[in-house]
C-alpha cells in the first residue's frame, strides 16, 4: 500500500470532561472516497472538525501529505489543500454567490477567477445568479454552492460533513452525483454521513463509528454486505437527512 494522503491515529477530542472521540484511527488513500458513518452523536463531526483544524484534538496524530498537522489551524490547512464542506452548509447569506466563491479562493489569489469560471461551468445555476445574495438560493442550491466554494480552493482532499442533511431525495441524488464526479476527477474525498447506506454505496472504504470509537471498518461493499453490521449500526433505510 502506498502512503495515505491523510491518516489519523488514535485521535481524541474532548468537550470539557466529555470525551466525544476516543481513539479513532483511519487512513485515506490518494484519490479514494472514504466514508465515516454512524448515528447522530457518534463523534463523526468532531473527527472531521479536528482533522480540518477547527477543533484542537486532546490527543492523537493527524498526518496530511506526510506532514504532522495535528495542531495546524484551519486557515493554514485550507491553503495546503485540505478543505472542508461544513455541516449545515455555512454559506455566507449576505454575500453574493460570486463573493462566496471568491471567499472559497481566499488562498488562491492568482488563479481565483479561472477556478471560479470552471466552477460556473459545472454549476450553471450558480453562474446565472452570481450577483444575488447567497441567502436567496434554495437549500439544495446552497449545498451546491458550499461544495462549489470548496472546489474553488483547488483541494487535494475534500472533507464533507453531512452534505445530504435536510435535503429532498431528488437533491440528495444530485449531491451524491457531484461527490462521485469530484472523486472521479482525482480529488480525494472524506465523507461523513448519517445516510450510511447511501454513503457506503458511493465509497471505497468505510468506518463505522459508535460512541466515539471505530467499531467496524473495511471495504465499503463488505460492510454493506454484512447483515450484522447493517442491522446493528445502519438501521433500516429511512428518508434521508431527517433530524
Amino acid at each position, binding site marked *: 500500500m502506498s502512503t495515505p494522503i491523510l491518516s489519523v491515529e488514535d485521535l481524541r477530542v474532548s468537550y470539557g470532561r466529555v470525551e466525544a472521540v476516543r481513539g479513532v484511527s483511519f487512513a485515506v488513500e490518494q484519490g479514494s472516497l472514504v466514508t465515516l458513518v454512524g448515528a447522530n452523536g457518534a463523534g463523526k463531526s468532531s473527527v472531521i472538525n479536528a482533522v480540518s483544524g477547527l477543533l484542537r484534538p486532546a490527543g492523537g496524530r493527524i498526518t496530511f501529505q506526510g506532514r504532522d498537522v495535528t495542531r495546524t489551524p484551519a486557515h493554514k490547512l*485550507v491553503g495546503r489543500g485540505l478543505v472542508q464542506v461544513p455541516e449545515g452548509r455555512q454559506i455566507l447569506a449576505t454575500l453574493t454567490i460570486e463573493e462566496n466563491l471568491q471567499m472559497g479562493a*481566499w488562498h488562491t489569489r492568482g488563479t481565483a477567477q479561472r477556478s471560479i469560471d470552471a466552477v460556473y461551468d459545472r454549476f450553471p445555476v450558480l453562474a446565472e445568479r452570481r450577483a444575488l445574495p447567497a441567502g436567496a438560493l434554495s437549500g439544495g442550491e446552497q449545498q451546491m454552492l458550499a461544495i462549489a466554494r470548496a472546489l474553488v480552493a483547488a483541494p487535494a482532499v475534500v472533507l464533507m460533513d453531512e452534505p445530504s442533511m435536510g435535503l429532498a431525495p431528488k437533491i440528495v441524488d444530485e449531491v451524491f452525483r457531484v461527490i462521485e464526479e469530484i472523486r472521479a476527477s482525482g480529488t480525494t474525498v472524506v465523507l461523513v454521513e448519517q445516510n450510511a447506506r447511501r454513503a457506503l454505496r458511493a465509497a471505497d472504504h468505510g468506518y463505522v463509528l459508535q460512541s466515539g470509537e471505530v467499531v467496524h471498518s473495511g471495504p465499503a461493499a463488505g460492510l454493506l454486505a454484512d447483515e450484522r453490521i447493517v442491522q446493528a449500526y445502519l438501521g433500516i433505510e429511512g428518508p434521508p437527512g431527517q433530524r
Partner: protein
Amino acid sequence: MQQLLNGIFIGSIYALFAIGFTLVFGILDRLNLAHPAVFAASAFVGIELVERGGLSLWAALPVVFVFGAVLGLVIERLAFRPLKGRADAHFAGLISSIALAGMLIALLQWRYGPDTRRFPPGSFPDTRFEVAGAQVTLAQVVILAVSLALMVGLTYMVTRTRLGRGMRAVAENPTAARVLGVDVDRITAVTFAISSALGAVAGVLFAINVNTAQLGMGSAIELKGLAVIIVGGMGSLPGALIGGLVLGLAEVFAVQYIGSSWRDVIAFGLLFLILLVRPQGLLGARKVREV
C-alpha cells in the same frame, strides 16, 4: 449658511469618529470603549508632532493615522484577544477597553499635564474662501475633504476588496470564515487597526477645528459617538455618516437659534426622536446580525 457649513464640518468629524466605532461593532460584534481615548490621545500627539516635530498640520495627519493603527493593534491584543474565548467576552471586552482607556488618559495627563493644549501660533494657513456669503477656512475644507476621503476609502475597501470581503465573512459567520481558510485573528486585528486609525485622524481633525486638545475630549465625544452609531443603525457605515452629520447640524443650529446651553438637549432630543420612529436606526438591518 455659515451655520450649515459649520454643522457639516463638525458633523463630518463626528461621522469619522463614529464610523471607526461602528466598524468594530459591525464586523466583530464588540464595542471598543477605548476608541474615545484614541481620539483624545491622537489630538495631543498631533499637536506635539506640529509643535516639536516641526511637521505641518497636513503632514501630521498620516503620521497620526499610523499611530492610531498601532494603538488599535495594542488595544485588540491587550483588551480583547485574551478574553475572546469567554462566554461573557462581549461584556468583558467593554470593561477591559474602559480600563485601557483610563490608562491611556492617565498617560496623557502624565505626559502633557492637565491643561488645554493648542497648536503653535502660525500653524494654520490664512487662506479663506467665501462660499455663498459664508466664511470658510482652508483648514475646514481640509477637515471635510479628509473625513470624506477616509469614509469613501473605507466603504470601497469593505465592499470591493478581498480584505473587505474577508471582514464581511467574519461579520456574518466567523466559523464559516475559518472553514474557508480565513485567519480570523488577523482580520480582527486589522479591523481594530483601521477603526483606531480613523478615530485617531478624527481626533486631530477635531483639535484642528477648535484649536484645542483636552483630556476630557474623549469622554465628550464618547456618548455622541455611541448615539450616532445607534441612530445610524449599529454596524452600518453609511448610517454612522448620516448620523454624524445630523448630530453636527443639530448642535450648531441649536446653539444658533436657541442658545448654547440647549445644545445637547436639542441634539440628543432629536436623536431620541429618530429612535422612537425607527428603533433599528436609520439604516439598521438587525436581521443581518441575527442569522
